[in-house]
């Protein structure tokens, strides 16, 4: 049994005989960050790099994404990988609307971030035209290490997020700006 396992550090708190007192935000953030279940919305070439990320060499499961969920109701983060065309945009929106809070979105690849190399009449120039995005991973396609880095950045975001964020007026305004 290896003794070099990297356990996630506990949050700051007061330790005593049989108790550990810390903030609710920290504990919830820690729990959420290390168990993000992805919904892989793989459309094109970036989807193959995602398959390589989920395979044994780069293993995204180490970061808590063991269970890949294809049902939006059961997923935490939506990973949009690949070009989204205008025909696909309503479907992407439907999938995002079905996800329950808290939910995060990673735009993997240049096409999802801004339309990529396809500046044409049929391609949506970035998924942030229809849904709010938290992390953008550039690349065409991004290496698996970059995708993992994107997930790790999202983990930082999730860890430091307040439990009340989804009820704040700023968040509601953000959703309203997308007509959600």
């Amino acid at each position, binding site marked *: 049994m290896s003794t070099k396992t990297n356990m996630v550090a506990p949050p700051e708190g007061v330790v005593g005989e049989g108790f550990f007192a810390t903030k609710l935000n920290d504990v919830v953030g820690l729990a959420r960050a290390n168990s993000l279940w992805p919904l892989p919305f793989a459309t094109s*070439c970036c989807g193959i790099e995602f398959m390589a990320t989920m395979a044994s060499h780069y293993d995204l499961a180490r970061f808590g994404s063991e269970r890949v969920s294809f049902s939006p109701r059961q997923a935490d983060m939506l990973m949009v990988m690949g070009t989204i065309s205008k025909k696909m945009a309503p479907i992407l929106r439907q999938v995002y609307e079905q996800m329950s809070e808290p939910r995060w979105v990673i735009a993997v690849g240049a096409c999802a971030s801004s339309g990529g190399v*396809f500046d044409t009449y049929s391609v949506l120039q970035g998924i942030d035209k229809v849904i709010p995005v938290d992390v953008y991973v550039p690349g065409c396609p991004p290496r698996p290490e970059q995708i993992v880095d994107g997930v790790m950045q999202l983990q930082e975001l999730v860890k430091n997020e307040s439990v009340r964020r989804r009820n704040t007026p700023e968040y509601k305004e953000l959703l309203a700006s997308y007509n959600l």
Partner: protein
Amino acid sequence: MSELLLPPEHRYAKIINEKRNDDGSEYSILNLGPTHPATHGIFQNILLMDGERIVEAEPTIGYIHRAFEKIAENRPFYQITPLTDRMNYCSSPINNMAWWMTVEKLLDIEVPKRAQYLRVIVMELARIADHIICNSILGVDTGAYTGFLYVFQFREKIYEIYEEICGARLTTNMGRIGGFEREWSNEAFRKLDVFLEEFPVAWKEFENLFERNRIFIDRTVNVGPISAESAMAYGFTGPNLRAAGVDYDVRVAQPYSSYDDFEFIVPVGKSGDTYDRFCVRNAEVWESLSIIRQALAKLPEGPYHADVPEYYLPPKEDVYTTMESLIYHFKIVMGEVPIPVAEIYHPVEGGNGELGFYLVTDGSRTPYRLHFRRPCFIYYQAYPEMIKGSLLSDAIVILSSLNVIAGELDA
């Protein structure tokens, strides 16, 4: 909005209203929607179901239409390779080499033997990579996850070889008009030798896991068969056609890039069902390995690119020191190279079948019309026919064995 919400005038709604079975049950509609865990890529099928059996299917594609043909009319010849990469992205070097061969046919350029053999090696590696994905994902769709994890390690090894050659993993953008951009390093050949030693062992284990496996045979034999006449009528080419019994292979019919220097057999199936398609792809991997070994053994010395200074970017030392190289470099980058007016159709054997490029030029720096004959687009038309009468899980397995790649379907 596509047919997400079925309007009442859809003909399936009419059929449901009219038809009733003897026991009073009626048909139902199931939307095998664009996003589905088991479809490889985004295409939609609206299925008319009689209980568990599929009566009729209506496919909708175009969810990843990126207008490649329109973009190609606005890009000079060097800038079209990244587009070809992204069509069949599982085996992108084949698409790249096919484009370069089309341009070389247009310009009547003779590629030296060494470059041709190297092209053969990289195309066969790409074919192996494509079949690895198809067969391992077919395993995943029948529930066997192990094969996928195991052989994907070897896809990483193939990616490392691509990185040594051109710097990229998946969308390789490899090659130039007349050959390659640089000589392959010793590291690339070393990695290739290691791959040729380790991969056959793993592929043999992968085959043993599936080919006599009772569950796999139950799931795939006699599932989605297609006869040879039907396959030819629907325009099938590639492994799907060969599984139906017709031995048409572009590498044999119209050899390009010195394929006629190599000995290989073309594996053919019998009934065209899923099991045959799986076995044909397995056998093709063995043939590809044999071709790579032959090419490495007979690899001649010589230049790795043709001597066409008007179309091939000169090395940077020459650009900075000699005048003609500077002028050629400028003209090539700006796209002011002499292009004849012609119409070319060049087919190659892609991972899925006959990938053809129909190029019409008018003498300007961009093609006038570039049309891709994409095998996936043509044989996917037969899918509704193939799943009539089967169960839903069989429909998924059939789709998986056809190896439909969304990028090539919609282009």
